[in-house]
């Protein structure tokens, strides 16, 4: 598929996964309100709204302030400060190239130039953060600057700019809010069940509920509560992987040079050490999995399901397909 077709396919798949996600949240929420709050007869969406409000509030706060805390946790240095303490002319040259490359991609994408940060880690990696294009930051590791040539660096920067342009940070925050809501609802239900079984099972015991249908729905809902947290996380990871493919394709549209990003990914893959500077919470923002989970290159069904990033080989193959169209 050429890069525009790949973009359309990725966006479509994101929305399918989001629809399933919202469906799961709704199922769990309706169930909690029906059986725990309302007792099997009245439907009062109190628990759903409360869970969404708490989770949503946390997510909104995270969106506004998250980029600063993520950058702090990786000990990133602003590029101007890094330039001032540059060790050699070669060093300065690479940093100027980084600055120019980011500005070129900002022009190609029609977005304001993001703030640039350098992470003192020798493993090649990069991430983007920020709630919208006007408040965005891009961070690259020292290892990335050393390992890649100018075109490859531009490919990686284009991928990160694509995340910013596609509002992926915002999307993943919404996803995190939905996962949070599911977890809250499941947790509350579990507590209520343990402490006296909720109004639903009490009235069931008294035989007051509406019959077999309600009982069936009740059982389905119990099963959903048990599996919802894991399912929610799996869906969140699915969305994350889909957006990685989309960022590859959108980044390739910015540079019109998908083979450069493919070559950069190949080089990053070869440098197998994990990036200790980037913590688990920020893993989904990076260009390559920083946690080293894919060290032995397992590519089975289960390995892929729990990964934040798609397998490197498939990303490279997709980019090469764009390049040879």
């Amino acid at each position, binding site marked *: 598929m050429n890069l525009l077709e790949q973009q359309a396919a990725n966006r479509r798949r994101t929305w399918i996964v989001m629809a399933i996600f919202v469906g799961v949240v709704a199922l769990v929420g309706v169930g909690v309100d029906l059986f725990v709050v309302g007792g099997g007869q009245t439907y009062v969406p109190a628990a759903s709204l409360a869970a969404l409000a708490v989770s949503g509030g946390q997510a909104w706060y995270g969106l506004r302030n998250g980029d600063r805390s993520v950058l702090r946790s990786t000990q990133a240095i602003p590029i101007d400060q890094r330039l001032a303490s540059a060790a050699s002319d070669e060093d300065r*040259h690479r940093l100027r190239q980084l600055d*120019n490359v980011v*500005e070129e991609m900002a*022009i*190609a*994408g*029609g977005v304001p130039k993001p703030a640039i940060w350098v992470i003192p880690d020798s493993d090649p990696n990069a991430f983007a953060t920020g709630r919208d294009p006007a408040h965005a930051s891009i961070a690259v590791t020292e290892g990335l600057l050393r390992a890649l040539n100018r075109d490859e660096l531009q490919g990686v920067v284009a991928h990160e700019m694509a995340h910013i342009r596609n509002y992926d940070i915002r999307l993943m925050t919404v996803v995190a809010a939905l996962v949070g809501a599911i977890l809250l609802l499941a947790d509350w239900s579990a507590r209520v069940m343990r402490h006296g079984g909720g109004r639903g099972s009490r009235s069931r015991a008294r035989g007051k509920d509406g019959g077999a249908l309600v009982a069936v729905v009740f059982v389905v809902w119990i099963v959903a509560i048990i599996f919802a947290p894991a399912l929610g996380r799996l869906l969140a990871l699915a969305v994350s992987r889909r957006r990685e493919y989309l960022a590859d394709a959108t980044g390739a*549209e910015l540079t019109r040079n998908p083979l450069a990003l493919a070559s950069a990914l190949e080089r990053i893959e070869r440098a197998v050490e994990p990036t200790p500077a980037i913590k688990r919470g920020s893993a989904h923002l990076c260009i390559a999995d920083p946690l080293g989970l894919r060290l032995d290159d397992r590519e089975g069904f289960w390995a892929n399901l729990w990964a934040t990033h798609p397998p490197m080989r498939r990303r490279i193959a997709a980019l090469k397909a764009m390049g040879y169209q």
Partner: protein
Amino acid sequence: MTMTLILLGAIAVFAMWGIGVYNRLIGLRNQKENGWRQIDVQLKRRHDLIPNLVNTVKGAMEFERDTLTAVMEARSRAMAAVGPADAGRKEGELTQALGRLFAVAENYPQLTANQNVRMLQEELSSTENKVGFARQFYNDIATKYNIAREVFPANIIAGLFRFDAAELFEITDAGDRQVPTVDLSMKT
């Protein structure tokens, strides 16, 4: 009574849709205009950077006076260009003159080792890239605008409010399509 309500409802929905389409077309048209001006910004940057480059290499490249003069003259002509077609042609000639200068500079190892020259080369090639990306962005946004104004049913609104088609930036002179030949032979 219900008939009038339904009718009013339908009109309201249609009006909201119309306003939405109109606003989207306005947004795209303004972004397209901005994209066009961005190209000028990058071209001007290139004009400003060139005298620096020429001064930096002039000392070492005494014997390449023709190449250096060609660059400065192409720059003056480009700055004096009138109209987009003329500017496009003159800027293309300037790109070719710079290309020749870079190729010739390879013959002077003390230049390529010199950090200042390398920095300037990086700045200049980055400016060339920026001009290219600015043109690419303009074409991308102009295409988005054209698609938005031509699809049905938005083309009704576009026609009503006179949203004209955007011209894409293209090479008018067939000569520009040719890859510039760089003569590295020893004759001056």
